[in-house]
């Protein structure tokens, strides 16, 4: 970065990308050229800063100023005000409160507020396509250290001592997994990076691969050294083209620098990495399914044991870790197991990245120490609920997690507490719901996902989840009975108890946790046929208040199914048999005469 005076870092993460950050880049470039500044100011596309709700976001270094840059006019204003006038383009700057809460600002590492960035340490701060940037930030130091100073077992001991647990959701102790694989005897072993991120709304792995691919490469090499593997494979979703491109660039650069390939750093250690592409099946995040998919077989789980650490890819011992797990490894080696273990709770060490989404003010990516409470995440970092509404629930752990309520807000988040509360860590999705959300519909929404994503191998998951969905559908249609609720319960327990893999064993969690925490909503749906959040249309009635109605006919004219009748200047009436509950009448009524009951 030396030859440029200033740097504009443009977020190329998925949200900003879809908000057309690439156009922001060309806008900025054009104005820099126009102003003859292109030799002084460099534009770098980085990965996610975490301010997803304010994209496309840019960061100007070394000034540490964040702007939102949507239009050519914005770009012009930023260049003219910030670089030429030397002031700031205040109108476009991100709010201080937002930055305090969510920033990837390097300052925060030194003085942690709520966030500590370990896995995301470089995301948004370095040029992911430039290995020198990574090295300047301490990259490959850990690999060098391990190769020079530690034998494989000592390296494994560091990871074990750090208390790092799998960040993909399972929470299996990483060091132990490495140790088991290292003890399996075979002529060939494999290190696999699970980059098949599938939870809806989760994009932490993507952000790491897009923003800091070398951290994963370095960690895979360290793992390979520790377990005795010379081959690494990254199983990555084909829907992540930018991550794939950057990973490919990074691998090529690492090879060029002798950090991958034969005889790495002259220490007689050979290791190289290849990519394998997933086709977007959620179940392929399960390690046995992932391995089968890499082998060219149908992506479906098989019974364990044998565990992949004994018999995995092509029948060889295989260590599968998730992207975020790998990204934490170099930091642990550099800063020490004790440092890492000092963060977090007794059984869950370090930090966890969460993707905050739903009815929350600051939507985006955060990395927080284990043990933080949901309240701190939602109300401090996340800035509370949108539009001043009331918090109702938060779904953690993705589609197989559970809905937690107000009662859980002060529970310290770690693997074990979340499971005890009826949810799970999962890969770190966190979707916040407010008073307008119907919890039966929420459960149905998640079941819809698992029905779609079940591999179809085992009966409880293949047919059971479908039936669960259908029962929920019956209930939201206002046709449910108390027997349906009994069926929901029994079916959920059996699916959890008898399914083959983690997908089926957790898929009823949204149903069970909502039954547990929002029992009265279910009862209302089946007994008085009422949805208190007015989400279940079948149970709603649009009724015209005759007192308020002036007979303007606007509603009748806009009703798509001609369900509204009435004379001009007289109160109108909605025929409930015809009404499709689209809400067009409510929108058109200027007199607030139409109520939803």
């Amino acid at each position: 970065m030396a030859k440029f005076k200033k740097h504009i870092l443009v977020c190329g993460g998925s949200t900003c990308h879809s908000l057309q950050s690439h156009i922001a880049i060309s806008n900025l470039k054009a104005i820099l050229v126009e102003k003859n500044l292109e030799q002084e100011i460099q534009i770098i596309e980085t990965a996610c800063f975490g301010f997803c709700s304010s994209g496309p976001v840019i960061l100007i270094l070394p000034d540490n100023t964040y702007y939102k840059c949507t239009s050519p006019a914005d770009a012009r204003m930023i260049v003219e005000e910030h670089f030429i006038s030397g002031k700031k383009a205040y109108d476009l700057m991100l709010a201080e409160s937002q930055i305090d809460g969510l920033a990837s600002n390097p300052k925060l590492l030194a003085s942690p507020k709520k966030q500590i960035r370990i896995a995301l340490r470089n995301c948004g701060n370095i040029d992911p396509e430039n290995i020198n940037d990574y090295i300047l930030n301490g990259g490959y130091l850990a690999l060098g250290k391990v190769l020079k100073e530690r034998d494989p077992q000592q390296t494994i001991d560091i990871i074990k001592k750090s208390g790092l647990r799998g960040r993909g959701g399972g929470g299996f102790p990483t060091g132990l997994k490495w140790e088991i694989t290292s003890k399996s005897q075979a002529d060939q072993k494999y290190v696999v990076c699970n980059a098949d991120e599938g939870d809806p709304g989760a994009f932490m792995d993507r952000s790491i691969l897009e923003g800091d691919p070398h951290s994963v490469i370095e960690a895979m090499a360290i793992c390979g050294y520790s377990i005795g593997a010379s081959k690494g494979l990254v199983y990555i979703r084909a829907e992540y083209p930018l991550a794939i491109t950057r990973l490919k660039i990074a691998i090529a650069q690492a090879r060029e620098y002798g950090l991958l390939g034969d005889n790495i750093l002259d220490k007689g250690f050979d290791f190289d990495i290849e990519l394998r592409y997933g086709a977007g099946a959620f179940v392929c995040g399960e390690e046995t399914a992932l391995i089968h998919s890499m082998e060219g077989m149908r992506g479906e789980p098989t019974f364990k044991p044998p565990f992949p650490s004994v018999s995995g890819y092509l029948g060889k011992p295989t260590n599968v870790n998730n992207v975020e797990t790998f990204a934490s490894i170099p930091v642990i080696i550099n800063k020490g197991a004790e440092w890492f273990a000092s963060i977090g709770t007794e059984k869950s060490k370090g930090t966890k990245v969460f993707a905050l989404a739903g009815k929350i003010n600051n939507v985006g990516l955060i990395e927080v120490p284990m043990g933080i409470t949901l309240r701190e995440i939602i109300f401090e970092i996340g800035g509370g609920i949108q539009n001043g509404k009331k918090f109702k629930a938060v779904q953690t752990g993705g589609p197989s997690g559970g809905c937690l309520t107000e009662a859980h807000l002060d529970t310290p988040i770690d693997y074990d507490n979340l499971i005890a509360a009826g949810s799970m860590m999962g890969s770190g999705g966190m979707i916040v719901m407010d008073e307008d959300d119907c919890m039966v519909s929420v459960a149905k929404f998640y079941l819809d996902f698992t029905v779609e994503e079940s591999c179809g191998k085992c009966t409880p998951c293949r047919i059971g989840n479908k039936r669960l969905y259908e029962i929920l559908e019956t209930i939201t249609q206002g046709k449910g009975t108390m027997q349906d609720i009994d069926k929901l319960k029994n079916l959920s327990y059996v699916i959890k108890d008898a399914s083959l893999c983690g997908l089926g064993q957790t898929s009823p969690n949204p149903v069970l946790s909502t039954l547990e925490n929002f029992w009265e909503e279910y009862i209302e749906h089946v007994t008085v046929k009422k949805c208190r959040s007015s989400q279940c249309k079948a149970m709603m009635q649009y009724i015209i208040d005759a007192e308020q109605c002036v007979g303007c006919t606007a509603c009748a004219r806009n009703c798509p199914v001609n369900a509204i009748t009435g004379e001009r200047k007289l109160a109108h009436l909605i025929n409930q048999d015809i009404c499709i509950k689209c809400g067009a009448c409510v929108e058109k009524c200027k007199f607030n005469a139409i109520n939803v009951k």
Partner: protein
Amino acid sequence: MEMIKLTIDNKIVEVAKGTTVLKAARKAGIDIPTLCYFELGDMNIENKPGGCRVCVVQIEGRKNLAPACATEVAEGMIVDTHNIRVLNARRTVVELMISDHPYDCLICAKSGNCELQDIAHKFGIREIPYQGEKSTYRKDTSPSIIRDVDKCIMCRRCEMMCNEFQTVGALSAVNRGFNSVVAPAFEMNLEKSPCTYCGQCVSVCPTGALTEVDHTRNIITALADKTKTVIVQTAPAVRAALGEEFGMEAGTIVTGKMAAALRRLGFKYVFDTDFAADLTIMEEGTELLNRLGRSLNGDTSVKLPILTSCCPGWVNFFEHNFPEMLDIPSTAKSPQQMFGAIAKTYFADKIGVKRNDMIVVSIMPCIAKKYECQRDEFKVDGNPDVDYSLSTRELAQFIKQANIDFINLPEEDFDHPLGESTGASVIFGNTGGVIEAACRTAYEIHTGKKLDKVEFNELRGMEGIREATIDFDGLPINIGIAHGLGNARKLLDDVKAGKSKFHAIEIMACPGGCIGGGGQPYHHGDSSILKKRAAAIYREDVGKPIRKSHENPDIIKLYDEFLGKPCGEKSHHLLHTHYFDKSTEVFIEEQ
């Protein structure tokens, strides 16, 4: 061997390390219901995907229930196979399966043989609490096999048979979740797949998802037509298994009862495919000796080994998978087709019936025979040499339908001349039998000496691949035998690589040979049934007065009166065939 001690339902059980909980429980006399699990002991066939979840048990200390079929025992393990938690899970799983299954048991071809029906009965399921959408899929009818995937419970047994045992690769799971089905690649119909119609998928399917195409109706129609002369031939393996369908002990030979039943069903002549098997030996044995002789005399254009060609599943397999070696198999037609060719020429002339007025029906342990008899090269002006082929199961059904008291039926003989056969032809039903029969004849013709002992025990057995060297009076003949197409593929790969030492190889597509054919009564994974059928076949051989094909007097007469000499011009025309490259026929886009 390391032994493991565990407790199952409060019983202490000791089993070898690596044993599954299911097998340990069975050893202790504890029955755990299974559905997707399937095993055919001596054939190395096992399906344990752990997918149906019917065999789940509770293992102390484990969070979830575990499938007994796929869980290995561990020291000190405490297993509970029938507590309320387990029973509820099992019952719910079966209720779920039935909730996505048609309720047409009354008219299902598998009714009475359906393992899902059995389990529903056993569990006393009287209502289905979880009603909902049923997965539906188009029916796929091929010349031999009907796929009615609505009845598929995703046990994946067919997939295992097709891919692992047969290495055919026609079937695998496609789609996801509730829409998962087992289907050929790209969801093509079976006809567009490399399916060989061996029928092993049908043999192992627990429900009515895979069944054979039923030809019974066509035969009833033909029998009712007074202008037609309907004759029937019965393959060797049928007589060793048909009795099972009537509750008789496996391995009971019912040749005489079968002949009597067929006559009562209205067949004008009841003949034996065994006759044609003897004829096959004459042709194939002669071909072997010709090729061998020329090769020994230094003729490098001759290819060895010669491969048997009686098995239509096997013929389909090499046409699909080894198109570059179509000149290696014997050109001799299968016994079914030799029979048809002789019946509609020699025999039709003898009784003065026109070809088109004769209907030839075959009773086969096989469903690939249904496809074979429809092949174009086995037709004369569109009229097939063999019109219809029934499986052993269909024949049993037909006999029941006609109210014939099979068990108490007095035994009768086959008609002449196409009913005369030798012990050599009977053993065609067992793996190794064809090559043994060929050796009996080829030895005597080649050496000019009489065999002291006609049994070649070195060619018998149930191992998937066997080899033996037979001494033809100083000339060692290397014989290879494979049953199961996966085993055949191994031998064929060696031939392709030029590494094969064999002079002749016998191949049968099905486990145990025709006795384990896709059209036989369902064995439900009981390999002792196959062994009993095999033993019965060898007993039948011993009981025959003539045990060498070339000594069959009606065969000798056939050559004298009609064919001339083995591999002669007339034989070449009627009894030999050629093969086609089918490797390019699969997966062609459907219209």
